[in-house]
């Protein structure tokens, strides 16, 4: 099976372990991911915050390159790129005048044919069916599935999963043998693009997320976005400063968890690249993972 693929800038740089794990998992499931030819940056928050047409034209050129290459579906692992591409496609399909204007800017008569698929949809519909029954080492860990903002919102455009309490990632974790916790911060914002310009804010927002996961006894936070990952991993210093405590809980990409369950070498999944080392508590085989630290603090869930 061959699918279009848009890695986006983070996956080629600071989140290359996400790229490595997406590629390794796809290869293990017999799927070929073909990059959109000569792809450009989607413009992220900066473009749509600063200039409306730029915010639409940059993603539109990506769609154009994919469409011209005959791609029907594009897998987009970065939640932020996914959101920009999905929103742009939606806006252009809704507004013919706008579609024409943007087409003129990008010098391509865009029909918006390629469908945009996020990493959870990719895993659920393509990877899991191919690997079911081939789980080599169950990922039997108690984890907090963190979706962040852009995989689920705005629901009217994305139409993906449940808005306040999504389940798709939890379901994937269960299928690879893990134990996803119930918690309150699945879709709270990590601080996203303010990572460099307002690091202290990110420390606080991401800190609340880690704190809830910790109180409820998670061994790791599972993420599906390079921005969420870098805020929870790279910005651990800012988090610890904001929360005034140490956290050793790793943040792991969902594709790394799936890859581990498939028996892929951790180095091929880039697990050595995280700032917060990926180490799990030792526990005797067959023993139930530790529960929440205190039921009162965790609340009734």
């Amino acid at each position, binding site marked *: 099976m061959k699918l279009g693929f848009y890695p986006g800038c983070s996956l080629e740089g600071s989140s290359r372990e996400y790229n490595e794990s997406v590629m390794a998992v796809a290869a293990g499931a017999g799927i070929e991911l073909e990059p959109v030819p000569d792809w450009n940056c989607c413009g992220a928050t900066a473009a749509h915050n600063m200039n409306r047409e730029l915010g639409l034209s940059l993603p539109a050129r990506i769609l154009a390159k994919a469409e011209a290459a005959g791609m029907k579906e594009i897998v987009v692992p970065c939640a932020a790129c996914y959101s920009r591409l999905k929103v742009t496609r939606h806006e252009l399909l809704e507004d013919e005048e706008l579609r024409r204007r943007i087409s003129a800017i990008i010098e391509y008569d865009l029909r918006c044919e390629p469908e945009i698929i996020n990493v959870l949809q990719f895993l659920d519909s393509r990877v899991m069916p191919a690997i079911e029954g081939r789980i080599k080492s169950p990922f039997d860990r108690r984890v907090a599935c963190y979706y962040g903002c852009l995989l689920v919102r705005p629901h009217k455009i994305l139409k993906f999963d449940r808005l306040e309490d999504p389940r798709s990632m939890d379901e994937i974790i269960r299928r690879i043998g893990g134990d996803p916790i119930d918690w309150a911060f699945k879709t709270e914002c990590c601080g996203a693009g*303010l990572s460099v310009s307002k690091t202290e804010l990110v420390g606080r927002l991401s800190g609340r997320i880690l704190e809830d996961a910790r109180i409820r006894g998670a061994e790791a936070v599972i993420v599906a976005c390079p921005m969420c990952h870098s805020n929870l991993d790279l910005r651990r210093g800012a988090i610890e400063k904001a929360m005034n405590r140490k956290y050793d809980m790793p943040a792991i990409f969902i594709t790394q968890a799936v890859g581990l369950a498939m028996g892929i070498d951790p180095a091929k999944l880039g697990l050595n690249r995280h700032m917060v080392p990926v180490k799990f508590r030792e526990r005797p085989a067959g023993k139930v993972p530790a529960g929440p630290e205190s039921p009162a603090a965790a609340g009734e869930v």
Partner: protein
Amino acid sequence: MSTDAHHDKATASLAGAILEQTGVPVDKCYQCGKCSAGCPLAADMDYPPSLILRMLQAGGPELEEKVLRSYTIWVCLTCETCYSRCPMEIDIPVMMDYLRHESLRLGMTSPRAKDIIRFHRSFLDSIKYTGRLYEVGLVVDYKARSMHLLQDVKLAPKMYFKGKLNLIPETIKGLPLIRRIFSRSSKAGGEDAR
């Protein structure tokens, strides 16, 4: 409810311009406060999102200028929580984009937002130079613009040894088109992207 007279007044106002340009109906907000209750940054804003809507409803040059000069519109992260919870389905993030563009166009950006805006500019420059985001260049450029020279110096070597930093930018073949996209977009709302 809206009479013709009201309508005429509305188009001259900022709320009217928002409706016309983005389709977001500011007048439909009934101040339930759900947007502000769920906004992860409400505590950091000078006016929480529901208050921005109230100020726009009341209108008048003074309040409108306060909105355009607010820190709120820049610290808003487009997390979309407000929009997904608003009982009136008011698309606050789209409205925020419009307010940012107007604030840039009129030169009214909040001084407190200068680092956020500098970061956006460095980000866009990186795309203009290579077609992609070159992270090392972005951070260096931002540091030079903001003079926060020492920020993150401890992180960089660690990232390098983890293989997370590309020291050489990659330039795409379609760069001339990207440049044309920038210059054509500059005429649209918001900042001159050239």
